[in-house]
């Protein structure tokens, strides 16, 4: 079965990012396909590679990148939400005259059309948020 996942909450806020990650792992372990994980609102903060959580804490951003690399996941952050929160790829950084970018490996920046498309492609959409 094809799943689409939406994450509306930032990492280390409450539990939504953790729940989404665990759900994604469990779905993949059962042989399901994840057509896309769409990060919206504060959820885009899952897509920065500059986080340095304490060594004894989980690293959510890194976990998403690792899961994406292992399973070829499409991790998409909403462009408007990302720009507001300072999550930029090289192209967006250049376009806005910023001196750095911070998008994490496996993530890409795109628009709400990707959320609509995920809902069309997926058999089930599961939303995690605040």
């Amino acid at each position, binding site marked *: *079965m094809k799943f689409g996942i939406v994450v509306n909450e930032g990492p280390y806020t409450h539990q939504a990012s953790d729940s989404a990650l665990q*759900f994604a*792992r469990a779905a993949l372990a059962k042989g399901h396909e994840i057509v896309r994980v769409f990060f919206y609102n504060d959820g885009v903060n899952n897509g920065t590679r500059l986080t340095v959580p304490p060594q004894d804490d989980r690293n959510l951003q890194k976990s998403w990148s690792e899961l994406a690399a292992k399973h070829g996941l499409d991790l998409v952050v909403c462009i408007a939400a990302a720009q507001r929160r300072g999550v930029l790829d090289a192209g967006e950084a250049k376009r806005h005259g910023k001196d750095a970018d911070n998008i994490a490996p496996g993530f890409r920046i795109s628009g709400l059309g990707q959320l609509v498309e995920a809902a069309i492609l997926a058999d*089930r959409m599961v939303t995690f*948020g605040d």
Partner: protein
Amino acid sequence: MSTLHTVNKSPFERAALISALGHVRPGDALLMIEDAVVGARKRTAFAAVVEAAAKICALFVLAPDLAARGMAEKDLIEGIKTVDYGGFVDLAAKHRRVQSWL
């Protein structure tokens, strides 16, 4: 056309669980995750509403979230079942759609 409802906030914090329980239909399932697992506890101020809903549809709690809050199956309202993340995935696959009550 059954629905899996998911709720992630305690009924003491948000109205989502009570709202969701008011919308469940026979054949649906409702899964309490994160802080919503508190809603599955016996003898709370919300227990009567949850017990009534348990007669209409299947109620579940996510076991790891239950354990993280120091609760066990013996603390749950009768008839509420526990699932792990794999069980969550199975419930999502079994029902026609998933409604997250955020």
